[in-house]
């Protein structure tokens, strides 16, 4: 499944990151790589963008970008 379909509070492992090079580069420099656990922590009033948590780091992503991140189907 992709990151944007995560439910609130759900925590999954990143299995793949696709999308354009610029986007992947940006995520990589933020330390967001395969194998990390990612959790949906907040949703904005319109359901987009959303806040995700990796460890103590919180990042805000739009759904358009979140679909590029594949996460594991179960914990």
């Amino acid at each position, binding site marked *: 499944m992709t990151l944007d379909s995560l439910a609130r509070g759900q925590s999954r492992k990143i299995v793949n990151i696709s999308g354009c090079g610029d986007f992947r*580069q940006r995520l990589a420099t933020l330390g967001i*790589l395969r194998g990390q656990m990612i959790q949906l922590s907040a949703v904005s009033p319109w359901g987009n963008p959303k806040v995700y948590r990796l460890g103590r780091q919180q990042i*805000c992503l739009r759904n358009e970008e979140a679909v590029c991140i594949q996460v594991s189907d179960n914990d």
Partner: protein
Amino acid sequence: MTKKHFTVALVGNPNCGKTSLFNLLTGARQRTGNMAGVTVDIKQGTREYEGLTLTFVDLPGIYSLSQNRVEERVTRDYLLSTPPDFILNVLDASHLSRHLALTTQLLEQSLPTLLALNMMDEAARLRQVPDLKELSRQLGVPALASDGRNIHIIKPLLDQLVASLLASNQHQSSLVSTFRALDIVYEPHIEQAVEQLQLADLPRWQAIQCLEAQGDVGFQLTENAQNAMTSALQMLADRHDETATEMITAGRYGYIHGLFHEIDENHVDISRIDSWLDRITLNRWLGLPLFFVSLWLIFEATFTFGAYPADWIEQGVSLLGDGVNWLLPESLFRAVITDGLLAGVGGVLVFLPNVVLLFFFIAILEQSGYMARAAFLTDRVMSKVGLHGKAFVPLVMGFGCNVPAIMATRTIEEPRARLITILINPFMSCSARLPVYVLLAGIFFTDNAGSALFGIHMLGILVAFMIAALLSRWLPAQPNEIFIMELPPWRWPSWRSLVLHVWDKVKDFLQKVGGVILVGSLAVWVLQTFPMQAEMSFLEQLGRWMAPIFAPLGFQWQETVALLSGFLAKEVIAATLAMVYQVNAEDIGGLQLAIQAGLAPAAGLALMVFTLLYMPCLATLAVIRRETGSWRWAALSIFSGLVLAWVGAWLAFTLGSLIL
């Protein structure tokens, strides 16, 4: 001859406290805030220390040296074109592994580096204080604790910096480098690619950066190297579905985790208070209402609490006036002082407390980390009208002054989104317009003046968004920039930086009072006083000549000339109003009565709306011209502002007459 003058560059991730440290090191007062992207250009400051002159250079925060965003380019090119004598690498001790990723790039380049670890208190709260000795031993560079809010911690930092500078300078003259390049072993295919590039005469760090940045680097590449890089990248792409950037980054993190494997940051959770604050402020249904309620509270408090010190200033000014009247015989000279200087300048000075309070509250929002959350809540609306998520910071800065706010749009890369953000910025009501609102709201909306202030600022935002929506339909669309924003951890605003920030604003305000407002008041006084013995002053003649244009808005010649004078700087509107209405009034209380008698409440509302929307002041126009590179946009800004202001004020007057 020994070198006495050294350059030290501050390098670090966004929002790690570089500017706070820079301010403390140099005594400068650069703007800081708990969010990324507050610093967009290079700033310098000097400090004398133990006989040396140290020039500190504050660079924009970057995540990596091999990325090609504006901030990163500025920093990367600075380091390559004018290499500083030393690099002060500022890190957030509570997010150490992420921040060390940049450090590994600096050390691979064997740049002379000193690590300054900020936020040690936060790390202590999380019970993961890094072992500085061990870190320094492993990386081969000095690592010290630092704190942009604490002056005592600076001395050891400076001592170490001076010692390192002198040592590296001595070694340089003896051609022995003290700084051995850091050697991280990457994944085998990456290593193979690096070797290929090294065969094309690139040093190892350049080879790694070529791969990491996918060829987009700040240094020149020979044709040979270019070819080697293309084939190396192709080789990697054939064998891996991860990009070279991802693989190299993974290598960096692997190295960093190996440095201190006993600490695994991923297992440390956000503190209870932080997650509680986030649950409330980011709540899907509560978040936005809470944002607006806090803004409303801020304006309410700005008006209410500002009234007390305003009274004292007013009493001071009128005492001064009495003194002048008592000391000097009735003369033209006395009139300049009482009716020109004291009425005009004093008429603006009384609003200083309101301006200070507004800045104080906004600074609290910024430094606590709330602003980034507000940007998250409003992102959808912003992107609907063609604004990029990064537009939030410049728009909020516009509440202070539009000039630095427009310069802050440089972080927005997509030209169309940047242009829109520049053009709508003047509708964000700057603090110079606050005196006019406070004056009029105090007269016509006595019981809910705070709500009136809130309302007029919201109207500004609404108009800004409407214009943005129009412009985004009209200007050709460009591919949207990716939006990834980090939410900073909640931080307690430091009193020192709050006080400094507010003190700066007071100084700015006083400088303006002593400059453009003084000159404007004197000019208005001259026009109001001459020709003597005539039926009408020049000012009144001018006002009455222009008045027909403003008559449908309920304005008389007094408001007309006040608005004209506001082109210099918006504070002058309040000064002019004070002068033209205060002719027979004793003090500000009398002024309020005089305005109330002369102006219908609906016209008062219309005047507020007109002040909000009409053309940007001279300084803002100049900066619009500079940042957009054409007078066309500045002219459009004047024109659209005037049209909108007239229509808006007419609507306010017409509707207001029905209700008020």
